[in-house]
């Protein structure tokens, strides 16, 4: 196991193939990141949706109670 490049600059340039290699790995980070985050953000939006519904239901209940008290 040894590092195959002499310097960091060489590691980045990869003897001219750097842009291609790095573009691919960058694209992979984006794609996997999207796959990871999409269900999480969806879950969040479902949660806020539910919270809003609960709030509305509570308010309606409170209003009904007020009306019946009066």
């Amino acid at each position, binding site marked *: *196991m*040894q*590092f*195959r*490049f002499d310097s960091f600059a060489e*590691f980045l340039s*990869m*003897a*001219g*193939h*750097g842009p*291609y*290699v790095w*573009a*691919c*790995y960058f*694209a*992979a980070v984006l*794609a*996997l990141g*999207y*796959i*990871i985050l*999409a*269900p*999480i953000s*969806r*879950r969040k939006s*479902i*949660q806020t*949706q*539910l*919270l809003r519904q*609960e709030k509305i239901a509570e308010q309606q209940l409170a209003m009904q109670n007020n009306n019946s008290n009066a």
Partner: protein
Amino acid sequence: MAWQWFHRLGSPKWFYEKTTAWMPWLLSISLLIIISVSIWALGFAPMDAKQGNSYRIMYLHVPTSIVAMAAYYVMAIAGGIGIIWKMKLSNMVMKVAAPIGAVLTALALFTGAVWGKPTWGTYWVWDARITSVLILLFLYLGVIALQEAFSDQEMADKASAILSLVGTVNIPIIYKSVDWWFTLHQPASIKMTSSSIASEMLYPLLAMIIGFYLFFTWALLSATRSEILQREIKTKWVKQALLQKA
């Protein structure tokens, strides 16, 4: 008794509760494998004699292509189970598999094209494999578009299940046809040679493939869990599960 697990599997609630404990493990193990093999592939793998450093893309390209293809079969099998046994959960798996598969297919195409530039001197070649993967992407996009087009979820599930099953019958035929078509038009200069690969390069590749499969499993479970929450939002247990964490 023997079939109990099968019926349980049909219960979204059971599935959701059962998988909760696995999720962090699956994600961290798969990411650990993917990241460590990537570091190895970028910095420590020996340079390929013919292709130079560009072959380091192979560690991304090959696993994504394999998993992208497998995802289609997962989707179609889930769709088939959904049609035959009317299993709710199975339909959800089918629905969420399509976007994941499409993203992976797009990634496979992108890495393939970028890899092609330094090796073949062009981003796009009408090579048999590339063409097949492109058509696979179209099949995914078709299933997604069909799923989106219906306002009724039950119809959307049935329609996309039928389409993905038809696609499954077609995929081997498409692959064979494209392969046959390519042998007619193949310019001799761009032949892929993947027959001999040094074991030093092979083992990390195998590890990466396993890593991507694990990641796909996580992604599928995770997206299915969100889908369960959405579809079962009226039930008590979903409300509890969501409000607890809020």
